[in-house]
């Protein structure tokens, strides 16, 4: 996919170079059409393709942990303890391993992806312009919402038939009872104690 986009960009550069060297060519009608394609249509398509590629790339686990402060969070996915919710989801492929962060931290609303990107830009600003936060002090603004869990678990048989979940279903849907902070599934990314925890090594 990225190869096709780069070929398109190179073609666009070649066409634009022709009009940079010989702008007088546009006097002929056929060259006028080519100029419109080379200086308007193809570059516009390159912007759309580039934006699409960058948005898809920003959903990858490798992209998230390429920021220095996120490295401990990436390591916490390998904790060898099933009570650690992110590690359990990642290791058992309950979320796609290459999109582990995005699967649980995406805002699944209409303007959610846009909000996520703006949050990402804010974090880049904090990393490179302002003061980067301590990894253990990072908190999700507004807290982790049940909607993120229910996006996958709601409707799943094992989830719905669980008597505790069934009794609390309305409360979970209305966010009155939190999946994480109510004491049921309270071990998420324990980055403070990461050095003391046993790690899982996946078979190569």
């Amino acid at each position, binding site marked *: 996919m990225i190869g096709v986009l780069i070929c398109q960009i190179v073609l666009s*550069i070649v066409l634009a170079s022709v009009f940079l060297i010989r702008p007088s060519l546009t006097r002929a009608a056929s060259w006028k059409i080519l100029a419109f394609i080379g200086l308007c249509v193809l570059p516009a398509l390159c912007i759309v393709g580039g934006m699409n590629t*960058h948005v898809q790339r920003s959903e990858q686990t490798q992209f998230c942990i390429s920021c220095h402060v996120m490295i401990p969070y990436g390591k916490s996915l390998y904790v060898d303890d099933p009570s650690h919710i992110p590690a359990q989801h990642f290791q058992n492929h309950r979320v796609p391993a290459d999109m582990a962060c995005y699967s649980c931290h995406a805002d699944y609303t209409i303007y959610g992806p846009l909000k996520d990107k703006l949050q990402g830009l804010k974090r880049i600003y904090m990393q490179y312009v302002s003061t980067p936060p301590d990894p253990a002090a990072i908190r999700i603004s507004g807290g982790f919402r049940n909607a993120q869990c229910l996006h996958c678990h709601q409707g799943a048989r094992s989830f719905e038939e669980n008597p505790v979940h069934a009794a609390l279903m309305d409360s979970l849907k209305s966010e009155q009872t939190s999946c994480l902070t109510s004491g049921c599934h309270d071990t998420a990314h324990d980055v403070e104690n990461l050095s003391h925890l046993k790690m899982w090594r996946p078979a190569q």
Partner: protein
Amino acid sequence: MKISEIGIGRLLRVSSFLVIVGLVLEIVSLLWFHPLSFVLFAFLAASLIGLGILVYLVSLVFVAPPPAEDTPYRQP
């Protein structure tokens, strides 16, 4: 100076230059796997390409092309 006085040739050169620089930066951003690559693309590459497209469209709307050199001169 009015836009129509600049000449289509110069505007096309400016437009082509902006588009080429923007596209080269887009290739760099695509090959660079780093959070800053998105910033490079969104704030620099896309802006330059967009500006290049805008200059080209301005050249189409506001600047009349010069008569072709081989066109015979007609008496009014």
